[in-house]
């Protein structure tokens, strides 16, 4: 299955192509910093790097409107950045500061920015299926033409919540896009061992939802697929399913030695890194020079560094704040 090209409303222009690249670079730069922050003891708990998967986050979020919603997973930094969240407040949250999006209460696993309709990462695998579908139900009821995109990993497809909510999304024809990031690992588990179907999209077939399988290492392909899906959902065609094939370049979380990983397989995927690929495309098309690229790279790095500086200057919450935010 491939993307239905006809339903595309806009062609990607150069400005967009560059934004896609820049968004991926920013997400990469952000996650590249995690090990350092860890080693310095600045982050607690777990945080999960999405290095290698930036094309999915960037392509998807840039294909959405600001008023559209996304729900994310434990591996949510890229999604959050791509949806437009402020880097300093994100960093502050990871550092547990008062100025963080969650006032230091959430950390990486619960990063959320409601001001850009990013409804939150989730520590429960599969926990956001229903939240996404329910948000879509509300939007539909209230006559909004916004859509909801639910990011999730292929491992989450084995949660019963998927069947339940996708089924309801279909029978009620809800404007929700299920975007599966098949990064080929759920911790150490491989989809071929755990998913009793050949193709990821077959699982959507079980609930009658049309699915497409796309190259999740190609940011343009992701953008096109999501744009098309969003257009269909907005037009009242109901839920959509996209399986984006990608790869988790790093360990599940910091400290994962990946003893279970086959290095030959990994090498093949590392060659398909979505960032060099987009660079290559734009440079060879003459849209960017290599100098442009270098300066973009140092730009995003500077942004991430600056965010860290600013976030580090922010205070930790006052212990009394632990008692706040339980009830509205």
């Amino acid at each position: 299955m491939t993307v239905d090209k006809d339903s595309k409303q806009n062609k990607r222009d150069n400005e967009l192509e560059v934004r896609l690249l820049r968004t991926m670079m920013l997400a990469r730069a952000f996650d590249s910093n995690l090990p350092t922050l860890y080693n310095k003891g600045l982050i607690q708990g777990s945080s999960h790097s999405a290095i290698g998967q930036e094309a999915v986050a960037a392509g998807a979020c840039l294909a959405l409107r600001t008023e559209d919603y996304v729900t994310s997973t434990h591996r949510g930094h890229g999604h959050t950045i791509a949806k437009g969240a402020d880097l300093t407040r994100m960093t502050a949250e990871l550092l547990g500061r008062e100025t963080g999006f969650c006032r230091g209460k959430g950390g990486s696993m619960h990063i959320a920015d409601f001001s850009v309709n990013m409804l939150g990462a989730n520590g429960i695998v599969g926990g956001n299926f229903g939240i996404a579908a329910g948000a879509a139900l509300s939007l539909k009821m209230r006559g909004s033409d916004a859509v909801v995109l639910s990011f999730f990993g292929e491992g989450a497809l084995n949660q019963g919540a998927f069947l339940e909510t996708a089924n309801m999304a279909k029978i009620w024809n809800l404007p929700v896009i299920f975007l599966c990031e098949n990064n080929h690992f759920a911790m150490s588990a491989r989809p071929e061992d755990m998913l009793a179907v050949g193709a990821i999209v077959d699982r959507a077939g079980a609930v009658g939802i049309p699915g497409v399988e796309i190259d999740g290492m190609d940011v343009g392909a992701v953008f096109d697929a999501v744009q098309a899906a969003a257009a269909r959902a907005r037009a009242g065609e109901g839920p959509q399913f996209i399986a984006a094939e990608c790869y988790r370049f790093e360990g599940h979380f910091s400290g994962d030695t990946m003893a279970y990983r086959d290095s030959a397989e990994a090498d093949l995927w590392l060659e398909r890194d979505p960032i060099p690929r987009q660079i290559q495309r734009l440079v060879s098309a003459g849209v960017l020079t290599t100098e442009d690229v270098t300066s973009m790279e140092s730009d995003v790095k500077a942004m991430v560094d600056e965010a860290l500086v600013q976030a580090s200057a922010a205070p930790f919450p006052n212990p009394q704040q632990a008692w706040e935010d339980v009830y509205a």
Partner: protein
Amino acid sequence: MPEMTYSAALNKALREEMNRDPNVFVMGEDIGVWGDGGGVFSVTKGLLDEFGSQRVLDTPISEEGFVSMGVGAALVGSRPVVEVMYSDFLTLVMDPLVNQAAKMRYMFGGQAKVPLVVRTNLGAAGGKAAQHSQSFETWFMHVPGIKVVVPTTPADAAGLLKTAIRDDNPVLFLEHKLLYFMKGEVPDVIEPIPFGQALIRREGKDVTLVATQVMLQLALKAADQLFEEEGIDVEVIDPRTLVPLDLETILTSVKKTGRCVIAHEAVERAGWAAEIGFEVSLQAFDFLDAPIVRVCSANLPVPYTKDLEAVVIPGLNDIKDGIRAVYQGKQYSRGGRAINE
């Protein structure tokens, strides 16, 4: 004031809230076309006809899914009222309730608001056995971030449901199967009843008795009989909401009577009688003239056949025995413990 059933009172409150606020909608299994037009216990009767299938959603048998969709809908501006057909099935929706709804506002640092009501019904109702008779309200008292409502009279049911729907937090609204078709007066104009305000249902000077729902009804009967028969004057308190809990009213009463009985239908071990009893034993330490008594379900699953069910679920005589025990300063226990406990 007109008399109506608990079920009809809930129905009226729901209808009025749906008329008042277009963001309120209801969903659940068989709440639309079942029976005489809505809901196994008729709470949603007539709503499908009146509000249409956009706001009255008959769902598939997918409890985890539709409760979690309630959370999502609440998060972006709707005010869903979701029905779980029996509270025993709360086992299937613990994740959306406990890990999502109750935590979102906190873990997102105040960004989120989850105005969700989940309605269901507690308790045994004669032969419904182990999987359709349970009372799980205590679990949710142990989960910060969610409110827990346990109305007994039709008027309270209606007024508290309005408050629940207008509350910006997740509310678990726990009805009781045996109350649905009991009648009581309900004001013409149903006003929301604030959470966290216990009611003294009967004044008395000798013993304070805290109870909810069916146990509250038995408690009132027990109080009347014991006053008549033995001159024991029992003050009966209905907390109405367990979270928030109006401990003040209970403490004031216990400080007056010096004796306290707590009755609930939930299993005794680690049930909420322990929580209230513990707090009372602390905060009224110097006022207590006798050990507190709890009258609760035995530490057993609920069996099917009548005589066995009656061993597990407390009845009128159990409550009377509990009151007599505390009055005489004796301990009270509903019988042998289960093997191996």
